[in-house]
């Protein structure tokens, strides 16, 4: 019943691999053409690595599904050229309101700090990012995206992985060096390998009602606890593009799923919520329950790599599902591409599991806590929950306890083996410590730069960058470092520095956010996370930190 979006249909196309004997070999095969799989293909293509992507369907997501995309996700998508399409189509919001019974008890403002290219969050139906990614893939002949191609088996044979595929023209097999399993939360491939994603199952059932209405509600996130129009449950209202609104109704543990898929059953509930005089139409109805779970280990037999929901799954509260998935994908791809190009040992991949286990655990912890607040498990916890909500209206101290979802923030890999700790003598602030994701700021490129966009984050990523405050340049050290593969020196200065990409700190915010002093330098990973930083550049220290970030020091 979706009327504002027509799913594109991507036809099955014959591949020479279907009749290849012996089976065709590829470096990387990706199972699943959702946001995670499609992104992985693009990021690998940017690193010059061809892929085959297999999706059992012939289109993008049916229905809106993932809705809320974070600033960090937009920055990740910027690296593959899809961030602007997201922002152009998406709805930007920053104000959230929390209601208890019939009263507003609290509101929060995500108050965007000035001087960042991307907003804190946008809302956009999942089929749009998938379509943007598919369209972008057309620009990369090294990506072979095959629709209507269901992977039936993945099997490690020696140093290779054999992938079996079912298509309308019959079955075939291929081999690859690495397979990325991005086939979603229920991952048939994971289950077929006898692997499991374990954690907490939540009994509550939820209903998503996407509706179209002409009424002009503000672009805000409204969350109700125990509202008069839906007693005892919670309700979330959020705006989407195309005049569409997402309403998320908690239905309780014993709801009849079949009944709540019937528009005639849902209509009175929505009408009671909006008021009698508001006209609306249904766009999409979906009943779901969820789990918070993860695999113990995201890498199976060294060459079968699980990424996205197949590896870790969270409740929707906090927008940590798709956002967490793309952070995992980004973390994996820069490592995998360097292993494939023999610039790093295969053991670097283990840090994908380590760093993203931290991310998955943070996301699961936060989303489980939010779920427990939203759906109290017994009378006493409900009493405390309701008391918090009552107090919050009058007592500011109670407001931090109100939890309708702690919104996704990027992971800081401070304890990662890839991060080089600060020297005590350098006296850096905690902000942007090694492992942090870099902060954006306006810049002006004074010569040929990585990207024409006047933003710092657009200048970082894809390769290691040594970002240096140009007020005191260690010329000899830099001359040595300039020869290093996969490392670019970028200087922050008001005048062009011969031989180096130079960025002008046009608003002074790079200096402020990175606590720059003359000579301060940051070594930044290809995923825009800080690997190390110093007050003064010494070539041997930079090289050691680079080796460490590539996994060469500790293996």
């Amino acid at each position: 019943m979706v009327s504002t979006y027509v799913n594109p249909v991507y036809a099955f196309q014959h591949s020479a691999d279907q009749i290849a004997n012996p089976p065709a070999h590829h470096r990387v095969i990706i199972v699943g053409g959702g946001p995670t799989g499609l992104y992985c293909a693009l990021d690998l293509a940017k690193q010059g690595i061809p892929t085959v992507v297999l999706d059992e369907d012939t289109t993008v997501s049916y229905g809106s599904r993932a809705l809320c995309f974070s600033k960090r996700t937009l920055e990740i998508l910027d690296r593959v050229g899809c961030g602007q399409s997201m922002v152009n189509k998406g709805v930007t919001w920053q104000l959230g309101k929390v209601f208890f019974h019939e009263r507003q008890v609290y509101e929060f403002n995500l108050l965007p700090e000035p001087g960042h290219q991307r907003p804190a969050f946008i809302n956009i139906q999942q089929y749009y990012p998938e379509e943007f990614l598919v369209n972008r893939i057309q620009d990369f002949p090294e990506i072979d995206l095959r629709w209507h191609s269901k992977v039936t088996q993945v099997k490690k044979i020696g140093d290779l992985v054999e992938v079996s595929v079912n298509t309308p023209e019959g079955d075939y097999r291929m081999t690859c060096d690495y397979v990325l399993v991005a086939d979603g939360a229920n991952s048939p491939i994971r289950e077929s390998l006898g692997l499991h994603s374990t954690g907490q199952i939540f009994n509550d059932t939820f209903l998503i009602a996407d509706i179209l209405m002409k009424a002009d509600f503000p672009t805000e996130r409204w969350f109700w606890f125990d509202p008069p129009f839906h007693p005892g449950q919670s309700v979330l209202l959020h705006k989407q593009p195309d005049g569409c609104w997402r309403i998320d109704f908690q239905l309780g543990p014993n709801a009849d799923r079949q009944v709540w898929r019937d528009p005639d059953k849902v209509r009175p509930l929505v009408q009671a919520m909006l008021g009698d005089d508001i006209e609306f139409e249904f766009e999409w109805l979906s009943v779901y329950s969820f789990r918070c779970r993860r695999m113990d280990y995201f890498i199976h037999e060294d060459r079968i790599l699980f990424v996205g929901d197949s590896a870790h799954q969270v409740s929707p509260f906090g927008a940590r599902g798709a956002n967490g998935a793309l952070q995992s994908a980004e973390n994996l791809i820069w490592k995998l591409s360097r292993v494939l190009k023999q610039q790093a040992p295969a053991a670097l991949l283990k840090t994908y599991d380590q760093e993203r286990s931290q991310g998955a655990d943070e996301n699961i912890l936060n989303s489980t806590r939010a779920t427990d607040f939203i759906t109290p498990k017994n009378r006493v916890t409900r009493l405390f929950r309701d008391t918090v909500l009552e107090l919050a209206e009058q007592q500011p101290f109670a407001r931090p306890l109100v939890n309708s979802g702690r919104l996704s923030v990027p992971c800081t890999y401070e304890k990662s083996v890839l991060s080089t700790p600060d020297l005590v003598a350098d006296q850096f602030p905690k902000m942007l410590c090694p492992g942090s994701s870099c902060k954006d700021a306006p810049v002006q490129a004074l010569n040929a730069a990585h990207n024409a966009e006047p933003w710092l984050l657009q200048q970082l990523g894809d390769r290691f960058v040594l970002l240096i405050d140009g007020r005191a340049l260690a010329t000899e050290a830099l001359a040595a470092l300039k020869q290093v593969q996969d490392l670019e020196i970028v200087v922050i200065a008001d005048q062009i520095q011969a031989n180096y990409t130079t960025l002008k700190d046009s608003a002074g915010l790079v200096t402020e956010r990175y606590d720059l002093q003359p000579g301060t330098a940051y070594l930044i990973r290809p995923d825009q996370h800080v690997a190390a930083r110093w007050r003064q550049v010494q070539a041997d220290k930079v090289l050691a930190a680079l080796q460490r970030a590539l996994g060469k020091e500790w293996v």
Partner: protein
Amino acid sequence: MSSLNLQANFSDADAFFAALADLHREGDERKSERINARLILILANHIGEQAILLEAMRIAAQVTTTDE
């Protein structure tokens, strides 16, 4: 970081207990439960320090009476 004070610390122990009893004198148990919940949240915020709160919760959960 300070630790949980388990030494007697009331400025007037008898007066405190009397006030606590007064708070619940009406005998409506549902109302009393709500008052207690508010009281716990207000006092917990005043303490603030997570380690102290956890220590207090640990001790509170050590039920030693025979009827439970």
